[in-house]
């Protein structure tokens, strides 16, 4: 029982990274980014295509790039697509509500998944693992894999970087300023659009980094990967899309709970519903106090 629960730490680490990215986006750009993982998925598929020298059956490119180069390009592509979407939102919806801004990422999610199907076909790709295997074995047969340590570390590192940048640097002050009052910051001479796009690029690239590493370890079809945003968002909701650390820990716990239910064959259906249950419980708990749409 404990073994299966702890086996959930691996996916929990992925959820944690996604949750951290979602919280950062929500805080800095007022967007709940439904395309967060889709950006990473797209980058990862690009890197596989570059490595194998072919996109779809019918689209072949002559050369096969070495893994390192292909992975770096994939991560950059993820960042660049994310930056493009960020630019579109910053350009046309600077003062719109969070809901209106987030809705755009639903449309981009749809487009990205479809373009990915067109470019890469609907069959899962042979992702070549970058790191794999167990890191260590604990007494009782519990295996800690390298990839789960990697993903949790990535979440922690991104969270720490975000904390330090936001609270200790001038860049962080500006980022928080544009998040709170975009026009006011703009009037003070802050290049709002550039900063916004930079945040989008960073989170998109980290998403690419994550997916490139984890795609080999789990079902890696285009849609399943993109939908990792759901458990990620469930975890981010635990921190109310505000608290990075709550999102991080929430992600890991979510994975563990899922792992626990995966170990009970009778309750196999429940596994798919755990993120939903978490979301609902959180929302109910958070409803105690009434909130209005505007302050006055």
């Amino acid at each position, binding site marked *: 029982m404990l073994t299966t629960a702890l086996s959930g730490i691996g996916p929990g680490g992925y959820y944690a990274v996604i949750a951290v990215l979602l919280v950062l986006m929500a805080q800095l750009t007022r967007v709940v980014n439904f395309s967060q993982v889709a950006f990473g998925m797209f980058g990862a598929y690009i890197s596989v295509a570059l490595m194998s020298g072919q996109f779809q059956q019918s689209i072949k490119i002559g050369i096969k790039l070495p893994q390192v180069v292909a992975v770096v390009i994939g991560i950059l592509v993820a960042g660049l697509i994310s930056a493009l979407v960020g630019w579109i939102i910053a350009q046309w919806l600077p003062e719109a509500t969070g*809901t209106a801004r987030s809705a*755009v990422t639903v*449309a981009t*999610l*749809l487009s990205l998944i479809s373009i990915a199907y067109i470019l890469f076909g609907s069959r899962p790709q042979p992702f070549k693992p970058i790191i794999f295997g167990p890191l260590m074995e604990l007494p009782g047969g519990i295996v800690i894999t390298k990839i789960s340590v990697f993903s949790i570390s990535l979440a922690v590192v991104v969270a720490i970087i975000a904390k330090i940048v936001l609270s200790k640097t001038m860049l962080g002050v500006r980022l928080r300023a544009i998040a709170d009052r975009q026009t006011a910051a703009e009037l003070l001479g802050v290049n709002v659009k550039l900063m916004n796009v930079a945040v989008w690029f960073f989170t998109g690239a980290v998403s690419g980094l994550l997916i490139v590493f984890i795609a080999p370890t789990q079902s890696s079809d285009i*849609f399943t990967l993109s939908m990792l945003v759901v458990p990620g968002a469930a975890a981010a909701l635990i921190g109310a899309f505000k608290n990075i650390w709550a999102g991080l820990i929430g992600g890991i716990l979510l994975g563990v709970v899922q792992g626990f239910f995966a170990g009970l064959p009778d309750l196999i*259906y429940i596994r*798919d519903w755990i993120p939903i249950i978490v*979301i609902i419980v959180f*929302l109910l708990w958070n409803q105690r106090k009434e909130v209005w749409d505007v302050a006055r």
Partner: protein
Amino acid sequence: MSLANRVRLQGSPWKPVLVAVATLIVGLALTAILPDQKWINIVTSVLVASVSLMGLGVVTGSAGMIALCQLTFAAVGAWVVEWLFVNEQLTFFGDFAFVVYILIGGLVAAVGGILVGLPALRLRGVNLAVLTLGIAAAVDLTLLKTGFPAFVAGMRVERPFNLGPSSVASDRGYLAFVIVAVVLISLMVVFLQRSRWGASWKSVAFSERSTASSGTNVRTAKLSAFAVSAFLGGLAGGLFDGQIMQGNAYSFTTINSLGMYVLSVVAGSYLIDMAIFGGILFILIPEILKVFKIDLQWGNVVFGILGIQALTTNSNLGQDIRNAIYKRKMSKVPPVELNLAPVEEKKVVEVPQGTGRTILKVRDLGVAFGAVKALQNVNLDIEEGTIVGLIGPNGAGKSTFVDALTGFLPHHTGVLTLEDIELDKLSPSRIARVGLRRTYQQDRVPDTLTVGAYVYFVSRGKATPEEIADTLEFFGCPDPTVPLRSVDVGTRRLIEVAANVAAKPKVLLLDEPAAGLSHDEHIAFGERLRSLPSKYGVTVIIIEHDLDLVRSVCTSITVLNFGEVLASGSQEDVLSNPEVLKAYMGETELL
């Protein structure tokens, strides 16, 4: 305003019925002449998709929420239809059993919608979107594992009225059935959109606060939108199941739900014609791609890109077309203007004197935001039938006072009573319903409604259409059929005042109602305000910076300064009080 328009608050009730009958005739004729099974099936699919899009139109188009599991509700509808069929339920309905199945499927989906929506709706933003996306994905996975009842039982659903298994004749018959169903559903949607429910959806999309203070529970408004949307999704699923006769998870995937959401935004599917148009796009684009042997995914790519365009420009095809038509029509008539003429001399009313009875009691009202005391020890008795001016410098706590009175600051201290009703524990919408109404300093009038529909919504059935038209005319507001979109902000605020007057509250709080009016309009507005107590039986509290207006209408005046009552009493006493002059105009400007 012509007499014919007087009682009509929005479009004619007969027009949709006529359009429906015409559509029915054309549709059934089309059914008879469609050449082959393929086209019959395409048209059927288009209509079924349209029903689903009408549902999304309610939740996203009207109520402004993101819902990403419309096809999940369709799956629920289809699943229920199959379960009822396989288990041979309700067979005593005979030929109509299938119709009952579809309705039950819709109702089950609606109940599902309420259960899903309940936790997500109180908090705003994108919680509903996160939750619905998650549910779509989870239902997807579950359905893949469990399958649909008919498939599991190795059966095929029987179509109604003995149409029999799929054949040209059967498909043709089923298309006729679907056409009748879709016409009826469209009529229902049109009348729902025009009802107070429909107005509440549009209002809540624009401003939750003003929805609550017009006596409508925000959560009920959102939940009803979501439930109606789920109901329509469920109906679409049931109709679809009759078409394909055996459901499978691949028809209801999350990605198609996403596509449908985006399409709904692009087309503006809260409009029936655009829902049909959306249905055509949803079905026909893949069919066209098939003909040219192009990857079907291009359809979703195109939807996605159109969606980005529509979302970033906050526009949709249906509304753009209607705006263009309206503009064309209106270019021939003069623009809508406020018609606030001075009242004839013999009709001018004196400043009202009141009945001597206290209608609103404020005892020890206090509001603190952290360490800041926005209001403290405020005591006030409002006499029935008077107009009370509430003045004070910026930051004195006037708007906080209004918020506290109308239930938006539940953590205030002290006791508020309206006649015998304690207001302190009531929600903003309850307070509005027991007879304490307010207007806003900001523009809080949803521009997606017509003037008449808005007033009808705010008045909550307290005023007949004639009274609504009268009240609008009294305040010089535009004709009820004019869309609020084409009315300027100053006029909208007067319409807001008129609407709240039409609701016949006991006490009405006006928060700077005259801002945005010219000086002449101020005077004319003041003349009308003075007759509110006698004409409508409403006691008025008015917050205003323009002392001329205050002098010309108020029975008594209360001055707030730094959250406390500085002076209260008759006009002459208060306005000659040196403390008031000092607080209000600064020491150097003493007369």
